[in-house]
C-alpha cells in the first residue's frame, strides 16, 4: 500500500544514502596522498520493491520501488598486480642494495683519479727502477722507502675500509631482521582482525590497506610471497619457509657466525634452520657482504702476501751499500698488516747482489722486474694485471647491478602506475562524484519538501473545519 508517508521515507533513504556516498568521497579525498590507500566507493542499490494495487482498478499495477541504500563500500584492488609488483620490487631492491654497497666498495678502492692501489704500485716499482739506475743516489733510496710506505698505507686503508663496510652491513641486517619480525607480527594480527570482520560480512577495507602495505614492505625487504586464503587471511613465506600462517608469525634472529669472521648469520628462532634470502634488500646485503666484499678483500690480501714474499726473498739475498746482507723489506702477511720492516732506513736497502760493489744494482733491478713477472693467479698474471682484473670485475659487477636496478625500477614504475590506476585516488574524479552526490542529495531533499507540501494540503487544507 503506497502512501505519501512512505514517499517521505523513500526520500529520507536517498538523503541518508547520498550522505554515505559523500562520506566515502570525503575518506578518499582525505587519503589522496596516503601510501597504500585503496580508493573506495559506495555501491548504491535500489531497495526491495513492494507490490502495488492500481488505485482505480484494484488489481496489481506492478511493483513500486522503495528507494536506495548503500549495498557495500567497495575497495578497488587487483591482486595479480600486487603479486607482480611485489616480485619486481623485491628484485629492484635487491639490485639497488647491491649497487649501493658495490659503489661504496668502489669508492673505497678509488682507482680512477690516482691515489689508488694501482698507481701506488706503479710508483713503488718506479722507485726501484730509479734506484736500479743509480744505486749510489741516496734520494732514490729515500724514494723507495717513502713509496713503499705509502703503498702499504693504501693496502691497509683499502683492507680496513672493506672490513668496516662488511661490518656496517651487519648493523643493517640486525635492524632489518627486527623490521621483518615486526611486520610478520603485524600481518598475523591483521589476519585475525580481517578474518573476523569478513566472518561478520564486513568489508575491512582499511585493514586490508594496512596489510597490503605491510606485505609490500616485506616483499621489498626479503622477497617474501603471500597467498590469500578463503577466510581472508594471508600466508607468507620467504624462500620456501613459512613466515606467517593464519594468526601465527615465526621470528628470525641473528647470531654471530664464528666461521664467517663473527659476522651475523640469520636463523629461524623456532627450528634454528639458517635463513636464506636471495631477494629483497636483505638478499642484496647478504650477497654484498658475503660474496663481493670478501672477493675484493681476498684479491688484495693475495697481492700483499705475494709482494711481501717475493720482495723479501730478493731483498734479503742482497747487500747494502756498506756491504752488509739485506734483511726483510716488508713485514706482515696480508693487506691489513703489510708494512715496511720496522726500523728499515734508506741505508739498509739492499740494492746490490754482491757485497762491496757500490755500483751494482742487480737486486733493485730484480725487484723492479717483479712488476712484469706473472706471480698471480697460478702464474698467469702480473700483480698489476691481477689488480686491474679485480677492479674490472668489481666495476662490471657494479655496472650490472646498477643497470639491473635501473631496468627493474622502470618495470616497477610501470607496474606501480597500473596499480595506482586501479586503486589510486583522483581528485578530479572525486570532485565529479561529489557534485553528483550533492545534486542527488539536493534532489531527494527537494522531493521531501514537495511531499511535505502535499501532506500539508491533505492535513491542513482539506475537509472539515478548513478554510
Amino acid at each position, binding site marked *: 500500500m503506497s502512501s505519501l508517508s512512505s514517499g517521505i521515507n523513500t526520500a529520507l533513504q536517498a538523503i541518508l544514502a547520498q550522505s554515505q556516498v559523500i562520506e566515502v568521497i570525503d575518506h578518499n579525498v582525505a587519503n589522496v596522498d596516503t601510501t597504500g590507500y585503496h580508493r573506495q566507493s559506495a555501491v548504491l542499490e535500489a531497495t526491495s520493491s513492494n507490490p502495488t494495487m492500481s488505485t482505480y482498478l484494484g488489481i496489481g499495477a506492478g511493483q513500486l520501488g522503495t528507494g536506495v541504500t548503500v549495498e557495500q563500500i567497495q575497495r578497488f584492488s587487483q591482486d595479480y598486480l600486487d603479486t607482480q609488483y611485489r616480485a619486481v620490487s623485491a628484485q629492484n631492491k635487491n639490485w639497488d642494495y647491491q649497487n649501493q654497497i658495490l659503489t661504496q666498495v668502489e669508492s673505497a678502492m678509488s682507482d680512477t683519479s690516482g691515489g689508488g692501489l694501482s698507481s701506488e704500485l706503479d710508483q713503488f716499482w718506479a722507485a726501484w727502477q730509479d734506484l736500479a739506475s743509480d744505486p749510489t743516489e741516496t734520494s732514490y733510496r729515500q724514494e723507495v722507502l717513502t713509496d713503499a710506505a705509502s703503498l702499504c698505507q693504501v693496502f691497509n686503508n683499502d683492507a680496513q675500509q672493506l672490513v668496516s663496510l662488511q661490518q656496517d652491513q651487519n648493523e643493517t641486517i640486525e635492524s632489518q631482521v627486527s623490521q621483518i619480525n615486526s611486520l610478520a607480527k603485524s600481518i598475523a594480527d591483521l589476519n585475525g582482525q580481517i578474518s573476523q570482520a569478513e566472518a561478520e560480512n564486513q568489508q575491512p577495507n582499511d585493514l586490508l590497506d594496512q596489510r597490503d602495505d605491510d606485505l609490500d614492505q616485506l616483499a621489498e625487504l626479503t622477497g617474501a610471497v603471500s597467498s590469500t586464503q578463503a577466510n581472508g587471511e594471508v600466508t607468507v613465506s620467504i624462500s620456501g619457509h613459512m613466515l606467517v600462517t593464519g594468526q601465527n608469525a615465526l621470528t628470525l634472529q641473528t647470531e654471530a657466525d664464528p666461521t664467517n669472521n663473527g659476522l651475523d648469520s640469520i636463523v629461524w628462532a623456532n627450528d634454528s634452520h639458517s635463513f636464506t634470502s636471495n631477494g629483497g634488500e636483505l638478499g642484496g646485503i647478504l650477497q654484498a657482504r658475503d660474496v663481493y666484499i670478501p672477493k675484493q678483500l681476498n684479491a688484495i690480501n693475495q697481492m700483499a702476501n705475494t709482494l711481501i714474499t717475493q720482495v723479501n726473498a730478493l731483498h734479503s739475498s742482497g747487500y747494502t751499500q756498506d756491504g752488509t746482507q739485506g734483511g726483510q723489506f716488508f713485514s706482515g702477511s696480508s693487506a691489513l698488516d703489510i708494512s715496511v720492516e720496522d726500523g728499515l732506513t734508506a741505508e739498509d736497502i739492499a740494492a746490490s747482489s754482491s757485497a762491496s*760493489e757500490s755500483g751494482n744494482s742487480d737486486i733493485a733491478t730484480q725487484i723492479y722486474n717483479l712488476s712484469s713477472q706473472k706471480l698471480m693467479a697460478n702464474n698467469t698474471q702480473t700483480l698489476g694485471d691481477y689488480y*686491474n682484473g679485480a677492479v674490472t670485475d668489481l666495476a662490471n659487477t657494479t655496472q650490472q647491478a646498477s643497470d639491473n636496478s635501473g631496468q627493474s625500477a622502470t618495470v616497477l614504475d610501470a607496474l606501480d602506475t597500473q596499480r595506482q590506476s586501479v586503486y589510486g585516488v583522483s581528485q578530479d574524479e572525486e570532485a565529479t562524484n561529489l557534485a553528483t552526490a550533492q545534486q542527488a542529495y539536493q534532489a531527494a531533499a527537494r522531493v521531501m519538501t514537495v511531499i511535505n507540501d502535499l501532506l500539508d494540503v491533505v492535513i491542513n487544507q482539506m475537509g472539515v473545519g478548513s478554510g
Partner: protein
Amino acid sequence: MRITNQMTTNNTIRYIQESLERLNTLQEQSSTGKQFQLPSDDPINASQSLSLESALSVSAGYQKTANFAKEWMTATDTSLSELTDIANQATSVVMSGLNDTESADERASALVPQLTEMINAAVDLGNSTYQGSYLFSGVSVDSPAFQLSGTSTLSYTGTSKAMTRSIGQNSSVTLNINGDEAISPLIQAMIKARDDLTSNNTTDLATVLDDLKSALSTLTDAQSENGGRLQQVENTISDLESFDSNLKSILSDKEDTDTTEAAALLENQETTYQAVLEVATRTLSALNLFSYLQNS
C-alpha cells in the same frame, strides 16, 4: 588509463630526478674533465686506462734510466776526449825527446815536468766522476779508479765488472768503459817516457812511441764503443718519448671528456631540466576540478 593524483606526483618527481641525474653526470664530466668517475661508469675504458697508466709509469722509469745512462756516457766521452788530447800531446813530447839537437839535460829539464803534469792530469781524468760516482772504476763506483803511488807505480783500484742498466723490457746497456783496459796503457806509457827521459834512455824511448800509438788507438776504440752505446741510448730515449706521447693520446682518448661536446650537452640538459620544472609546476598546482566547482 585512469590517472590519479599520486601518479602525477610520483611521475613528476621521477622526471625531475632523472633529469637531475643526467645533469649531474654531465656536470661531473665537464668539471672533472674525465668521462668516468668510478670504474663502473665505464669498466672497459677504466681497465684499459689503468693498464695505460702502468705502461706510462714503466716507460717513464726507463726514460729516467736511459737519461742517466746518456749523461754518464756523455761524461765518459768528455773524459776520453781529453785523454786523447793528452795522448797526442805526450806523443809530440816524446817525439821532441827523440830529437837530438838538444842535450840530454836540457831535454830532461824541459820535457819531464810537462810529462809529469800530463800524467797527473791523466790520472785525474781517469778518476772523473759523474754525480759522485767514478766513471772508470767498474762496479766499485765509490772508490777511485787509479792510484799513483810514489811517482812511477800506477795501480788500478777499480773492478773489471761493468754496470748494466735496463732501458727496456728486454734491452739493457753497459754503462762503463773499463778504465784498466782503456786508460792504464796511456798512463803507463807516459810514466815510462818520463822515466826514459830522466835517465836519457833513448833506445827505450823509441819503443815508448809505439806504446803511445797503441794506447791512443785503445783510447779511440773505447771512445767509439762508448759513442755506439750513447747512440743506442739516445735512440731508446726518442723511441720511449714517441711511445709515451702515443700512450698519452690513447689515454686521453679513453678517459678525458671532449670539453666542447660536454659543454653543448650540458647546456642542452639544463634547458631540458628547466622545461621539466616548468611542466612540473603546471601539473602539480594549476589543474584541479575542485577549484572550479567551488565557484559554481
